[in-house]
């Protein structure tokens, strides 16, 4: 816990081969899911990653946890490069970084009891806790708000929110320092969402965890994140302290994304500025030249097609990749 950053990614790239040629079925093109992304998570804080479907946020999560191999780039965990780690070294590194998944139905094995599910990481890592595995699991169940007496029950006996608590307990059993949560509340109802968000915040406070919190719901990220990264077509277009990015977005895409969120206040209907993006996100197989957002951007010029903007940091600590960043008001 000494390092300033719990998790860093440097120039991460992940291409998935796609299509096949007539000869030998060789891939002819690449889906550029993540295309040169750098990020850092300050120890004890939360980095929120937002973007629409297909922008590469889930691929980024999987690359950052080394669940899939990056095509290039480096991942640093607590300051230690784990990109090339393998075997025992990787297994030890994985104790520190755990994941929570979106769907609490498909991420739990229906044939295993809750005790087995939460205890599984201990078995894999061949760790036997001092107080015994069962006690350790029951402690965690209590910590996440489950009844420890339900140790022998099966996932189908729990509601969606409780299942997500099981997933959280499983992620915590190895005492990780960082948790990557990929859409952890989007499958849940609002009232349950709030319970899980409060739980995650409480755990962060009590255990000093760092989070990477991936979501498409901008208001949820607003609530939980200290820093935020906005992704579009495999790249980060804007990143910085959540307050700065949300209050005065500099990238046109961030602004459009924020203005599209329905406001739960009918009195303000029509009163907030609405930017309507036309068209759809282009294919990541063949992204537009220059700035990838230019095909949908109302400010785009010839420069945007010719030259790709690089992430540039401004005085407020925010970085934006745009040739014509919006004035902060």
């Amino acid at each position, binding site marked *: 816990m000494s390092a300033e950053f719990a998790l860093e990614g440097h120039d991460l790239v992940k291409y998935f081969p796609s299509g096949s040629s007539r000869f030998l079925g060789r891939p002819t093109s690449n889906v550029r899911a993540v295309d040169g992304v750098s990020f850092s998570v300050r120890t004890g804080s939360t980095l929120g990653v937002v973007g629409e479907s297909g922008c590469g946020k889930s691929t980024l999560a999987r690359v950052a946890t080394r669940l899939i191999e990056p095509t290039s780039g480096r991942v640093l965990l607590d300051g230690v490069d784990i990109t090339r780690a393998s075997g025992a070294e990787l297994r030890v590194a994985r104790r520190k970084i755990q994941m929570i998944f979106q769907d609490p139905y498909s991420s739990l094995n229906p044939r295993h009891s809750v005790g087995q599910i939460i205890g599984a990481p201990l078995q894999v890592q061949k760790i036997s806790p001092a107080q015994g595995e069962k006690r350790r699991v029951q402690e965690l169940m209590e910590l996440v708000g489950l009844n420890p007496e339900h140790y022998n029950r099966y996932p189908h006996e729990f509601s969606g929110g409780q299942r997500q608590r099981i997933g959280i307990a499983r992620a915590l059993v190895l005492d990780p320092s960082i948790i990557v949560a990929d859409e952890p509340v989007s499958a849940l109802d609002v009232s349950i969402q709030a*319970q899980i968000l409060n739980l995650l915040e409480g755990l962060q406070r009590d255990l000093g965890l760092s989070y990477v919190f991936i979501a498409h719901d901008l208001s949820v990220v607003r*609530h939980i994140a200290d820093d935020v990264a906005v992704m579009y077509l495999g790249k980060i277009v804007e990143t910085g302290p959540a307050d700065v990015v949300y209050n005065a977005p500099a990238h046109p895409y961030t602004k459009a994304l924020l203005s599209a969120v329905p406001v739960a206040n009918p009195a303000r209907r029509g009163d907030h500025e609405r930017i309507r993006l036309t068209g759809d996100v282009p294919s990541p197989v063949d992204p537009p030249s220059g700035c990838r957002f230019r095909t949908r951007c109302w400010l785009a010029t010839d420069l945007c097609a010719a030259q790709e903007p690089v992430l540039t940091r401004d005085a407020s600590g925010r970085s934006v990749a745009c040739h014509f960043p919006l004035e902060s008001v």
Partner: protein
Amino acid sequence: MNLPILSVRHLCVSFTTPDGVVHAVNDVSFDVKAGQTLGIVGESGSGKSVTAGSIMRLNNSITAETSGSVVIDGVDILNCSEEQARAIRGSEVAMVFQDPLSALNPYYTVGYQIAEAYEVHHPNASKSETRKVVLDMLTKVGIPNPEKRYDEYPHQFSGGMRQRIVIAIALVNKPKILIADEPTTALDVTVQAQILDLMLELQRETNMAIILITHDLGVVAEVAQDVLVMYAGRVVEEAEVNSLFASPTHPYSWGLLGAVSSLDEHKRGQLRTISGTPPSLISIPSGCAFRPRCEFYEGEDSDCHNRVPDLRIIGGLSSSSACHLSDQQIIEIGKSKVLS
């Protein structure tokens, strides 16, 4: 003169399952007027979709038992012949579903699928007339280059474009009522905004009524005039949209509004939550179904435990609430909840 074009009265739907009888909808009544949008909000399992299905009489399988009445333009669709029901379905009432990919048939071109819906209700239409209607419809829902896209298949369209096709199918017969069951839940926010705009624009043009089923209070706040809040198969609050957000009148609505995280949140704090989980619809609690999660529950000897609260107008507000608290208490607590 604006008489309701849809009146639902005392609608009850239950399903017999191996685990017991599921009481999905319990005594639901409401009206919808032409040109208006009614939002139905609630969590999963609150009976929103089953209510919508009943309006089209889609639940009438062997397992579902339905009582009450659903009157569309003077015809009770629950108690008429199958032929009458078929004539109403699609032409008077049409539906848009959540997932546009599974609502479309992957084996047929989108043009064919829209034409099919038209031909069912216009059996004498000529081929060229149908084609013209379909092309008009494609233009109306904002599909660029309709002549070319007519002969394409659903997989060649993006999610938002597919939802536009589904809307085209629903609207090709100019229905008076459009039921949209979570129409934007599967879509990204920027696309969601496009689709909601499209629906409102078409509503202005045709003066149809929209019933919008959603779990997203933000969407309701943006588009609906009236809102029903459902819990465990019952309407717990019925309100004009401004009234719901300014002075909600049911403890469940208070919880729901408090649990929403918002964009312009200045300080991070605990979100208010509703403790516990929604009840099983097989064994709904006696009295008020919300009582196990309600902070104002008054104990076993109270009305909360023993009597189902009726939906009643709360004095001075354009809302009705199904809660045993007095009007005075409801107004005061509602206000404090919104302010805090």
